């Protein structure tokens, strides 16, 4: 057994102070294990949100050594333990207490996305026919666990606080999952440009870097949506082509 120091941001309402905790660590421990050990050994009032400990519920998002991560999926053996390991709450959201933030703005932004609107059923029994390869593209987006690490790392929210004008990477992934679905008939492109601020994304790919589900958020969701916005608003030739295209 060896020892490691964890520098955890403590406080409430954004008034944070880093406090050091030294604990004994064992093989296979993750950061969330260390936080639980700190809770049990002397900081019983340390607030932390967690649930599954398996990287599937998206609850234990925090910033470990400055990078947004799931605490339950961050192994101590991957960190430099010769220095204190910093654990902070996410910076893009209002702070509640210790490692807990208020992520409700993400759910409000999600409500602004038009819901799934399928075409008429293909069959008399109310079912549709789809080929697997047609739904594969949107399957990737359904892996999202709503940990909001992508929202946290996105500088448009984190540094520029555009929460009212920009729905963020997670919600673009959700929008892409609906918009690119082969059965969906709803048009969300106008909303993406005007109300949901897709133009604020400047493709730094930080959201892709931190995604624990390895969703290619920028390449497969945001850029394709940006291209659909270009089709609709910035490409006169595509518009012209559509005008002369025979209607089905």
């Amino acid at each position, binding site marked *: 057994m060896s020892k490691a120091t964890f520098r955890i941001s403590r406080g409430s309402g*954004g008034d944070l102070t880093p406090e050091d905790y030294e604990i004994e660590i064992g093989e296979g421990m993750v950061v969330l294990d260390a936080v639980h050990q700190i809770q049990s050994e002397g900081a019983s009032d340390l607030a932390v949100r967690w649930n599954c400990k398996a990287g599937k519920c998206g609850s234990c998002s925090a910033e470990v*050594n400055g*990078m947004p991560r799931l605490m339950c999926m961050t192994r101590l053996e991957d960190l430099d333990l010769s220095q204190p390991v910093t654990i902070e709450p996410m910076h*893009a*959201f*209002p702070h509640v207490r210790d490692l807990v933030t208020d992520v*409700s703005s993400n759910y409000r932004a999600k409500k602004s996305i038009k819901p799934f609107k399928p075409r008429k059923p293909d069959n008399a029994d109310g079912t549709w026919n789809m080929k697997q390869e047609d739904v594969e593209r949107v399957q990737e987006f359904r892996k999202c666990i709503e940990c909001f690490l992508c929202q946290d790392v996105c500088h448009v929210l984190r540094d520029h606080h555009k929460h009212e004008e920009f729905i963020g990477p997670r919600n673009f992934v959700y929008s892409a999952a609906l918009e690119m679905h082969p059965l969906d008939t709803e048009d969300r492109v106008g909303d993406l440009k005007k109300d949901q601020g897709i133009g604020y994304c400047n493709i730094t790919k*930080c959201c892709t870097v931190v995604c624990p589900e390895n969703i290619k958020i920028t390449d497969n969701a945001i850029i*394709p949506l940006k291209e659909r916005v*270009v089709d609709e608003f910035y490409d006169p030739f595509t518009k012209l082509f559509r005008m002369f295209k025979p209607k089905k």
Partner: protein
Amino acid sequence: MTTTGTNLPLPQQRAFGKTNRTDRWWLKPLLIFLGFGAFVVYSTWAAFQGTNYFYGVGGADYLSPFYSPLLFGVAEAHPLISVVPEGGRPPWWPGWMPFSTAFFILWAPGGFRFTCYYYRGAYYKSFWLDPVNCSVGEPRKGYRGEQKLPLILQNIHRYFLYVALIFIIILLWDAMKAFWFTDPEGIGHFGIGLGSIIMLCNAVFLGCYTCGCHSLRHLIGGRKDCGTCSGPSGKAYSCVSGLNSKHMMWAWISLFWVGFTDFYIRMCAAGIWSDPRFF
């Protein structure tokens, strides 16, 4: 202080460069800055030279990609529009302005790369510092992104793509000509020089970069929700997606190689070294 609809305030924006990251987060943007910077400096210098862009010794036909298609230039390089003395200028070009036939060419690949989704993300970080790297404090408080002018003009990317695709065909033609050598009797025959291989690699690398473009991926099939309903475009979409997944790699390889191709031909033309013939 900004809020998000709750009574709780958002954390204040961190100062420029402030982060708790413990890795060398500054290294990648620095390398990108140096890489792009070196290419921009070299390509600008090469464009302003206006000479040594064509190598014809021993019947070779090597034309620098910075000057292709050659609009004005030396007769042996077969310019498209008119023949003027090397380093000369068309009569309508303003006398006070420096002239190089490369000026008519480089706006197109330059515009394609400048508006490329990969490069945008990279130079916003390395040159604009917006942000310099993920979860690192920024120097500016205001932010317009690509939502408003001037960066909303980045949406012109697909038009540069159309031009870039034409350039790929031209560069492939140049690469084919580089395998065709003219002997002293004026008879052309197949041959392979080091320059032939370099020019072929250049066209292939640029092709891989251009054909992996996000806009092409969208136009060729990504815009459709039902890939199998669109026949051959579904397969084309898969091919472009394969190249697109390595877009960054091809962006860098093609950037380096196009500069190297110009440099190689320039050195041959200047007599610094000679082109070895293998066949």
